[in-house]
């Protein structure tokens, strides 16, 4: 944690900064396409690009372990889950004109206003701060493992219980009711099944 000296100007970026900037632009563009595209499956695929870009940013910030965890969990499983969700809810392939709701202009206004305020505050607060990336990697697997299992063992174990609870909850929620005739293909029509519950 050192303050940026006069030698670290914004106009003379280092190589890491240039790489961070370029990958950040790709990430941001992919995120924008994710929230604006009208093709639902393309949104999930652009999300892969955005999350992969964030993994590269972690690597540039010398947090290796988090980067690979990001690739494994987000790109590997979360996006696959989202694609399965899109398929199971029979999302239309191709352009769906009603992907955005009617309040998108209000949403755009809120997003731009909050972005302006937050960028202003963050730049004002941290423009003199300098991350020192030299020396040993801050987030190598060894360092992360040591800190995780020396200082953070109890939250780690509690997290495993949380994951188990989420697993059981997801199974209970998506299980069909045992009683009653199981008609097939009922998901296609908006059947009112409130009476059965």
């Amino acid at each position, binding site marked *: 944690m050192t303050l*940026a000296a006069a030698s670290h100007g*914004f106009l003379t970026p280092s190589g890491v900064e240039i790489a961070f900037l370029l990958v950040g632009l790709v990430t941001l563009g992919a995120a924008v396409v994710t929230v604006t595209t009208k093709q639902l499956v393309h949104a999930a695929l652009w999300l892969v690009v955005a999350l992969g870009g964030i993994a590269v940013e972690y690597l540039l910030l010398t*947090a290796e372990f988090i980067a690979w965890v990001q690739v494994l*969990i987000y790109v590997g499983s979360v996006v696959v889950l989202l694609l399965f969700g899109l398929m199971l809810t029979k999302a239309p392939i191709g352009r769906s004109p009603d992907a955005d709701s009617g309040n998108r202009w209000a949403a755009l206004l809120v997003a731009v206003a909050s972005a302006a305020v937050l960028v202003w505050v963050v730049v004002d607060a941290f423009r003199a701060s300098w991350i020192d990336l030299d020396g040993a990697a801050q987030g190598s697997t060894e360092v*992360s493992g040591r800190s995780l299992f020396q200082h953070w063992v109890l939250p780690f174990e509690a997290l495993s219980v949380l994951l188990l609870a989420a697993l059981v909850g997801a199974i209970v929620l998506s299980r069909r009711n045992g009683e009653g005739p199981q008609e097939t293909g009922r998901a296609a029509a908006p059947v009112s099944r409130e009476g059965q519950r």
Partner: protein
Amino acid sequence: MHLAYPAVLAVLLFCVGLYGVLARRNAILVLMSVELMLNAVNLNLVAFDVWLRDTLHAGQALTLFTIAVAAAEIGIGLAIVLLVYRNRGSSDVDKLTDLAERSAEDEQAHPQSQQQAEAAA
């Protein structure tokens, strides 16, 4: 590296996710936008952890915990979306208005307008 770069990128990603949550109509796309917002927070956590050179590595540990909680959240969220879809035939957030507050005049006006439509037909 200037701390401003990761901080500003995280802010912009968060606001893109905010726009997605507010503007999208499909519940699964809303979940994707929530993932974007969570990732922005994770980027902030990692950047500040590296900046502060924390000996406990609290930022990176918390990032791992956030990733795990996000995985749990996406599982439960998709199960709920599938349940809604199975019950109502649509995963459209705008149509889930059972808890919306309607005035009594609306309730009376609707059957009347339907009757008028039928009469006109």
